C-alpha cells in the first residue's frame, strides 16, 4: 500500500475508493464527458488530435473516466455536433480500443458514453427525431420528425449494440446521457413527449423508453456497469416540462431497472435559465444530488454541475449528498487538478472561470478550446508543449496583464530567467479593474490574477512593479536582456474621440473601472462591447441611470456566444437604455448629444460620459525598442484589442517558443 499524499489525507472522502458494479475505483472522482470535443472526422472517426487529448485526460488521476459521447446510429440522427464520434460499427473500434487502453493503463475505470442527441441531433440531416412533433424553441436546432414505434425499438437495439461495442473496445462500462435535453430526456419529459401510445402520457409510460433502454443494455452487457445521466431539474417548467418531483420519480424508475449509477444533471440546452455558467454560484445545484441520494441510498450518485471545487465535493461526499464528484470543465482548465489536490497544492490550480468558451466554440461548429488552458486540443502539437529551453535566455516582459504574465510563467517553466516590468503597482493589467465589476462572479476572474501572482513567486519570476518600460529605461539596461515581450494591452482611442465636441470631459473606462475617478448618477457609456457592458451593468447595479451608446447595430458584438444572452438579459433586467447605430457628437454640462444612423439627434441627460470604445493597441514600444534588443515580440491586446482568451493563449504560445 502506498503512503497517502498530503492532500489525500485532507480530502479523505474524495480520495477514498468507490464501487460501481463489480469494479472498485481508486477514488471518488469521475471525469464526466460534459461535452464533445469536435476534434474528430466529419464521419465519426477518432483522430490523432483526440487520442492525444484523451491521453492527457486518462492521466488526470480520476478513478472513473468517461469518454465523450458517441452517436449510435448509422444515419446520424443522434449526431449533435459537427465532429462527434460514432460507434455504430466495428470500423470505429481501433481508436476506441486505444483510448480504453490508455484509461486502463492509468489505473482508472473506463466508461464509454452513448449520446443520441434526439431533439438536438441530426446535424447533417436537416431534421431531428423526437417522441412527438414539438417545435423547436431555438432556431439553432432542426425541425422535428416523430419516431414510430418500430424506430423506437430500433433505437433501443442500436444503443445496446453500441454498449456491446464499447465493452468489446475494452471499456469497463457504458453511460447513456439524457443531459441537456438529448433523446432520453425527450421521452422522459412531458414537454417533448405528448404521445398517446404506451411511450407517452403518464410518467410510467414516458419512462418506458428509458426502462427498455436500460434493460437492453444490461442484457447486452450484463457484467458491466451502466450509468444513466438524468435531470434533477429540467428548468423547462415554463414550456411545460417535468417538475423536479417528476424528475425524481424517473430516477426511481431507472434505479428499479437496475442501473448501476445515476449521474444527476441540470437543465436543457434551450432552458431559459443558466445552469453551468459563471453567473451560477458553485454549489447552487447540490440540493438536487442530495435529494437523489436520499431517494436512492443504495444507488451510487455522481454529481458535479457547477461544482468546480474539490474541497466542496469532499464535504458533500462526507455529508452524504452524493458518492462521486463528476468533474469535466475544471479538468479541461487544469488537467493536473486532481494531482494538485492530492499533493495539497490546490493553490496552484488554474480554475475554470465558467466563461463557457468551450461551448461557445462548439456552437460555432469549431473544436472546443479553453480560456484557461491554451494547450487543450493542441496536445498533439509540439509547439504547445512546455519543454526545457535549448538556450536559456534573459527575458523581459513588459506588462503584467494576463498576456504578459502567461508568457512570463510559461517562459520561466522552460528555464528562462524572466523579469516583468509593470507601470502600475499591481499584477493583472486591465483585467483587475473589470474583474471586480463582473456581475456574474468577480472571484472567478480575480482568481486569474491571484494565480499569476502565486506562480510568478513560485517560479522565481521577478516582478518590477511601478516601473514603466520606456526608451530611457531600455537604454539604462541595454544588453541585460536577450528578449523583450511587449504585452502592454490596449487603451481607449482618445484620438478617435477628438471629433466629439467637449471630448475632454469624457472619462476613460479603465480609470472608472479601477475606481480612480468618481462618477455621477446619470451616466452615458460609449461602447456596448464586453468592456462597456461590464462597466455599465456594475454602475447601474450601483444605482446610477445608465445609457449605452453603441456604434454597431447590436450590443455585445465581441461577447462569447454562450455569454451574450446573459449580458443582453442583464441589460434588460437592469433597464439599461441602449442606443445602437448611434454616436455621441457633443458632451456638455446637461448631457450629451447622440446621433443615430438616420441622422436623428437626441439629448441624453448625463452628468458623466465614459468611453470604453473604440480601443487601440499600445504599440509604441515596438518602434522604440526595435534596435535595442536581440528579440522583440508582442502578445495579447498590444497586437490587436480582443480580450482575455487571446491574451492568455498568445502569452502561452509565445512563452512556449521563446
Amino acid at each position, binding site marked *: 500500500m502506498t503512503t497517502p499524499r498530503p492532500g489525500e489525507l485532507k480530502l479523505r472522502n474524495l480520495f477514498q475508493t468507490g464501487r460501481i458494479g463489480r469494479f472498485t475505483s481508486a477514488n471518488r472522482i469521475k471525469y464526466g464527458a460534459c461535452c464533445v470535443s469536435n476534434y474528430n472526422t466529419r464521419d465519426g472517426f477518432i483522430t490523432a488530435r483526440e487520442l492525444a487529448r484523451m491521453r492527457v485526460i486518462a492521466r488526470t488521476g480520476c478513478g472513473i473516466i468517461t469518454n465523450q459521447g458517441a452517436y449510435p446510429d448509422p444515419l446520424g440522427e443522434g449526431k449533435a455536433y459537427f465532429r462527434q464520434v460514432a460507434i455504430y460499427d466495428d470500423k470505429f473500434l481501433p481508436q476506441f480500443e486505444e483510448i480504453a487502453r490508455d484509461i486502463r493503463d492509468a489505473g482508472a475505470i473506463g466508461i464509454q458514453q452513448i449520446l443520441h442527441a434526439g431533439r438536438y441531433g441530426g446535424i447533417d440531416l436537416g431534421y431531428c427525431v423526437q417522441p412527438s412533433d414539438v417545435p*423547436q424553441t431555438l432556431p439553432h*436546432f432542426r425541425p422535428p420528425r416523430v419516431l414510430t414505434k418500430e424506430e423506437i425499438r430500433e433505437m433501443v437495439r442500436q444503443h445496446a449494440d453500441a454498449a456491446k461495442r464499447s465493452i468489446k473496445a475494452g471499456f469497463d462500462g457504458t453511460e447513456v446521457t439524457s443531459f441537456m435535453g438529448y433523446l432520453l430526456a425527450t421521452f422522459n419529459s412531458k414537454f417533448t413527449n405528448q404521445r398517446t401510445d404506451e411511450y407517452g402520457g403518464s410518467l410510467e409510460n414516458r419512462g418506458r423508453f428509458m426502462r427498455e433502454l436500460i434493460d437492453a443494455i444490461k442484457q447486452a452487457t450484463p457484467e458491466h456497469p451502466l450509468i444513466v445521466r438524468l435531470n434533477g431539474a429540467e428548468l423547462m417548467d415554463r414550456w411545460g416540462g417535468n417538475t423536479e418531483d417528476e424528475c425524481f420519480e424517473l430516477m426511481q424508475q431507472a434505479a428499479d431497472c437496475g442501473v448501476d449509477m445515476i449521474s444527476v444533471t441540470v437543465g436543457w440546452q434551450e432552458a431559459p435559465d443558466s445552469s453551468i455558467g459563471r453567473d451560477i454560484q458553485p454549489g447552487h445545484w447540490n440540493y438536487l444530488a442530495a435529494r437523489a441520494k436520499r431517494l436512492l441510498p443504495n444507488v451510487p450518485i455522481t454529481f458535479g454541475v457547477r461544482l468546480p471545487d474539490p474541497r466542496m465535493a469532499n464535504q458533500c461526499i462526507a455529508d452524504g449528498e452524493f458518492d462521486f464528484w463528476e468533474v469535466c470543465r475544471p479538468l479541461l482548465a487544469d488537467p493536473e487538478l486532481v494531482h494538485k489536490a492530492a499533493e495539497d497544492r490546490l493553490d496552484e490550480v488554474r480554475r475554470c472561470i465558467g466563461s463557457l468558451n468551450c461551448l461557445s466554440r462548439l456552437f460555432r461548429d469549431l473544436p472546443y478550446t479553453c480560456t484557461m488552458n491554451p494547450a487543450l486540443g493542441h496536445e498533439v502539437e509540439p509547439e504547445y508543449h512546455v519543454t526545457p529551453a535549448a538556450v536559456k535566455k534573459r527575458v523581459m516582459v513588459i506588462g503584467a496583464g494576463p498576456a504578459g504574465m502567461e508568457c512570463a510563467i510559461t517562459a520561466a517553466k522552460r528555464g528562462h530567467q524572466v523579469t516583468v516590468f509593470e507601470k502600475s503597482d499591481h499584477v493583472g493589467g486591465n483585467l483587475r479593474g473589470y474583474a471586480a465589476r463582473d456581475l456574474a462572479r468577480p472571484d472567478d476572474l480575480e482568481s486569474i490574477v491571484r494565480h499569476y501572482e502565486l506562480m510568478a513567486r513560485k517560479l522565481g519570476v521577478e516582478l518590477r512593479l511601478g516601473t514603466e518600460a520606456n526608451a530611457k529605461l531600455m537604454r539604462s539596461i541595454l544588453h541585460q536582456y536577450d528578449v523583450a515581450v511587449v504585452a502592454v494591452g490596449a487603451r481607449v482611442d482618445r484620438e478617435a474621440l477628438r471629433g466629439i465636441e467637449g471630448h475632454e470631459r469624457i472619462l476613460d473606462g479603465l480609470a472608472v473601472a479601477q475606481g480612480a475617478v468618481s462618477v455621477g448618477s446619470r451616466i452615458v457609456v460609449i461602447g456596448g462591447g464586453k468592456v462597456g457592458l461590464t462597466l455599465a451593468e456594475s454602475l447601474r447595479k450601483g444605482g446610477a441611470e445608465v445609457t449605452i451608446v453603441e456604434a454597431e447595430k447590436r450590443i455585445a458584438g465581441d461577447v462569447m456566444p454562450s455569454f451574450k444572452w446573459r449580458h443582453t438579459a442583464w441589460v434588460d433586467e437592469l433597464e439599461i437604455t441602449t442606443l445602437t447605430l448611434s454616436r455621441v457628437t457633443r458632451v456638455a454640462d446637461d448631457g450629451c448629444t447622440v446621433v443615430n444612423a438616420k441622422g436623428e439627434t437626441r439629448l441624453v441627460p448625463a452628468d458623466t460620459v465614459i468611453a470604453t470604445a473604440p480601443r487601440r493597441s499600445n504599440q509604441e514600444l515596438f518602434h522604440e525598442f526595435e534596435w535595442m534588443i536581440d528579440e522583440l515580440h508582442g502578445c495579447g491586446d498590444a497586437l490587436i484589442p480582443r480580450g482575455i482568451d487571446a491574451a492568455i493563449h498568445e502569452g502561452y504560445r509565445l512563452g512556449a517558443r521563446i
Partner: protein
Amino acid sequence: MVSDANTMLADVAGWQRMLDRHAELFTELAPGARIGILPREPTGFAPGRQPAGWRDARFGTAGAPFLAWEAAEGRMHARCEQIGGFGEARADFLLLADAQSIAEAYAALEGDALGRLKRRIRRGDVMLCTFRTRAELARAGYEDFLDSLGLAFMGACR
C-alpha cells in the same frame, strides 16, 4: 380576448411603424423572408401541449388572425391575414403568443414592443415555432433579428 387580438394584429399601420423604427434589424433579410405572429388560443398550443398533427390541423371555422412581417424591397412589410391552419402561414418561423403578450407588445408599439416580446419569450408566454433549419435562417439573414429577441441563434448551453 381573441377578438382583441384580432383588432390589435389588424392594426397594420401601427406594426409597420414599429418595424420601420427597427429597420436596421431587417436589412440583411432576403426578399420573401417571413415571420408570423399568431395568437396561441385558436391554434391549441400551450406550454407542454400541441394538438396532434398540428402542422396540418385547421384552426376551426373562424381561422386565426395572422400578422405577417415579410421582407421585400429592402424593408419589412406588415400585413394581417386570416389563416385556417399553420400550412397557410408560409412563415420561416412563428411566434405563438398568448393574448396578454400580444396586448403588451401592441401597447408598446410606439416604444419597446420587441423588448416586450423578448421578455415574454423568456417567460414561455410566446412560443417559437421554427420551420427552417439554422443554415436556411442564416442564409435568409435572420441573425440580427433573432439576436434582438434574445434567441440564441448559435446554440444555447447555459
